[in-house]
């Protein structure tokens, strides 16, 4: 029987181009923090070892760890910052679940990737879309015994039952809060609701805690998203200040037990909506936010302390890092004696990272540390010197100098993006 002439189907190569391009604005590519698995004794492939692996780096400095694609970039939503919004005239394509499975496995076998990060535009309904995403994960896990990493983007409007199923197959689940303020969300993502997003994050958190708890009592209780949940905020598309964003991030960490909050500097997209700002915010702003995030998670800074590092306009300085900015504002807390001070005081010294502080604490059990010794344990003793006391060193004049910032602030040079994954 003659088939009616259909428009020529796009090839896998063309669709991969469209759907990878459509997915790249999500910053997360982490493949770490899940349970350890190997493919020994199974019929498939794949392993996870706690630490993630970046299999390549793109010229944007970002790590490529997972095959990050959308199932489809057709979308019924119309979020202004998104290249896939309904009113954008971007090229559209879709994969079947089986096609995504085949791509993932053939990339994984060649050691290109750690696994899959799958998201999707909303087609038909949120629940229908979520079902399709889960189907990909199900085929990978059940039919191919795939033991690599799976990150599923979860659709907050979908049936909670489906969201719960996603966690049984995925290592990580995530829901993007998208914008740091509710006003920003209302304006730029009019089809989304902050209440709904937070509700879905809460139920994910509950499922994660519940499953962890069950596994303490029953060894064979099913795992639920062992690598936890994460979220992403777009920086620079609305009027939120760094202080707003830091406050919002700490609430998110606190309320939803998030593993990570990703910050994505708004970047120009093809066929942008007219309500968006034209110019991107400086990438350094994103970097400073990651640094402040680190201060809260690993250096014991409270959110209000990070906010104190921001200027009167609520913005973190771009020319110096937030830790140095804080130290310059609270000079009375310095200098810190490297031979006596407790760990949390040492962590406040600009230029001393967690590694250096651990080394100092171990080394000072062996000997009294001189400035030269500290120099061996850190990258730049010149940056550290004004803030510490060592056996043969006391920065009497330096700490009080008004032009201290000029003495130690980095010369105008491109800093590397250390923290974005």
């Amino acid at each position, binding site marked *: 029987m003659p088939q009616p002439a259909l428009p020529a189907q796009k090839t896998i190569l063309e669709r991969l181009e469209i759907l990878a391009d459509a997915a790249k604005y999500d910053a997360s590519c982490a493949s770490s923090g899940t349970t350890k698995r190997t493919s020994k004794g199974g019929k498939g492939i794949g392993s996870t070892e706690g630490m993630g692996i970046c299999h390549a780096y793109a010229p944007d400095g970002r790590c490529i760890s997972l095959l990050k*694609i959308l199932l489809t970039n057709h979308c019924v939503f*119309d979020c202004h910052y998104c290249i896939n919004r309904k009113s954008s005239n971007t090229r559209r394509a879709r994969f079947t679940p089986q096609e995504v499975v085949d791509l993932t496995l053939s990339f994984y076998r*060649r050691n*290109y990737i750690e696994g899959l990060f799958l998201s999707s535009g909303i087609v038909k309904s949120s629940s229908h879309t979520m079902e399709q995403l889960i189907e990909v994960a199900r085929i990978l896990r059940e039919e191919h015994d795939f033991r690599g990493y799976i990150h599923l983007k979860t659709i907050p409007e979908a049936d909670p039952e489906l969201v719960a199923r996603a966690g049984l197959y995925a290592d990580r689940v995530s829901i993007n809060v998208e914008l740091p303020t509710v006003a920003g969300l209302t304006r730029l993502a009019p089809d989304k609701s902050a209440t709904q997003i937070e509700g879905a994050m809460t139920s994910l958190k509950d499922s994660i805690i519940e499953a962890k708890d069950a596994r303490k009592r029953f060894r064979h209780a099913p795992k639920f998203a062992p690598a936890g949940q994460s979220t992403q905020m777009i920086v620079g598309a609305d009027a939120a200040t760094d202080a707003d964003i830091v406050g919002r991030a700490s609430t998110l960490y606190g309320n939803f037990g998030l593993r990570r909050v990703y910050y994505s500097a708004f*970047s120009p997209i093809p066929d942008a909506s007219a309500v968006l700002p034209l110019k991107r915010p400086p990438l350094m702003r994103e970097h400073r936010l990651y640094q402040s995030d680190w201060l809260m998670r690993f250096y014991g800074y409270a959110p209000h302390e990070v906010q104190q590092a921001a200027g009167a306009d609520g913005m973190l300085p771009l020319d110096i890092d937030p830790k140095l900015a804080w130290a310059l504002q609270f000079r009375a807390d310095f200098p810190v004696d490297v031979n006596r001070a407790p760990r949390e005081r040492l962590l406040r010294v600009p230029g001393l990272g967690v590694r250096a502080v651990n080394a100092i604490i171990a080394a000072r059990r062996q*000997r009294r540390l001189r400035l030269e010794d500290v120099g061996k344990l850190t990258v730049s003793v010149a940056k550290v010197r004004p803030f510490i006391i060592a056996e043969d060193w006391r920065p009497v004049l330096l700490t009080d100098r008004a032009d201290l910032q000029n003495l130690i602030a980095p010369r105008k040079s491109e800093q590397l*993006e250390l923290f974005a994954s």
Partner: protein
Amino acid sequence: MTPFRAMHSAEAFCVSLAAPDDFEGWRDAARRLIQADVPPDRIVWDSPADHSADLFAQGERRLPAPPAHAPQPRASRDFVQYAKSAILHSDSKRFSLIYRLLWRLQAKPRLMEDKADSDVRSIDELARQVRRDIHKMRAFVRFRVIEEADGERYVAWFEPDHHIVRSNAAFFVRRFTTMRWSILTPRGSMHWDGEILQEGPPATRADAPAGDPVEALWRKYYASTFNPARLKVGAMLKEMPRRYWKNMPETSLIPELIAGAQAREARMVAAGGQDLGERPATLAGMAEAIRSCRRCAIGCTGTNSVMGEGPQTPVLMIVGEQPGDTEEQQGRPFIGPAGQLLRAHLQDAGIAIEQAYVTNAVKHFKFAPRGKQRLHQNPTAKEIDVCRWWLDGERALIRPRIVLALGASAARGLLGRTVSVQKERGIPNLLEDGSELWITTHPSYLLRLQDHGRAEEEQKFANDLHRVAARVSELSR
């Protein structure tokens, strides 16, 4: 000094290890040398990959017999961990460094905690470089598939910096247990058949397959996942130094991706809209500016723009979609057939149109020519969003308390999202400036309906206008 030490003090020893990563061999020799109290500077170490030229010929090849009842050397756990990593380094001095640390540990058991000690720092650095090389091998090995008589085999060519191939093989076994694979390197090869790991001799690049059809997909993925608006070449190079590039199929794309990035970003910014700058501060100024607005395709067709009109401080603002054929010719909003219908219904609801400011979401006429006729065409969402700049400007100047949007295009111009008129009619939306937005159908929609359907929709339209009229009179009091 013990008599034994005196006997050997002038003598040098040569230790030849079986392989450059032979930790067990090193450990056995080191244990006997420590027990025999041989100081570090009396030992020359070598392996098949490390040839120590100095003193090589002169040293004693037999190790000293340790004295009876000599105690076991002491070594902390972290020392053993460091030593196991550092021995994989390609620096020939590693064996003697590790021995020197073991020697010093006998007198100072907590030496490894002193991170400021130069030997501790050295071994720390060697171990760090080895860990990094192991990690990079796990990351950058690229398999290519070949067909063999009994099935597929995945073969990779990799050039590590250090002697890590043997110790890293277990990772690939854990990950690819059910695959048959080979990793070929200049330092030796590893082959896995699904059950047994076999070692092979050093290989050359020519022994590995030259390509794989899936690489075209991978290269496409690599190029597409790159965001040209955030070029950070330094960050890429730091983690993926050039020396790895030659064995990775995707890296040949990098130069063109970098070269094209700025142009691509500039194109996106240009296509996204123009720098809007300041809006004129008066309605007349805006009308003048709209006349020459070319920010979207509708503005570029050479038609006249139609500015809103009405009192400067009204309670009510009425927003339509765009000027039609008649409006464009006369330069005034709502004077065509749809305008007539609107006027009749407004009058019926008790609103005099002269008391409202009347305008459109889009200020130019979009049409398709059919012979002499110009057929109305709906503006796209993008065009409405572009023109929202002007509508926002009008609202900011005349500050209405109530806005009535006629049809989905008008509603989009005010809310920035796609609106279902039937779902949202009859319930006011609060706009950012505190004014109320009411949504109803566009009168031209009523004109297209027939008979019963029209009567029904016209009734709903009239009901909506009556509600708005009630709010207007409440707020006008």
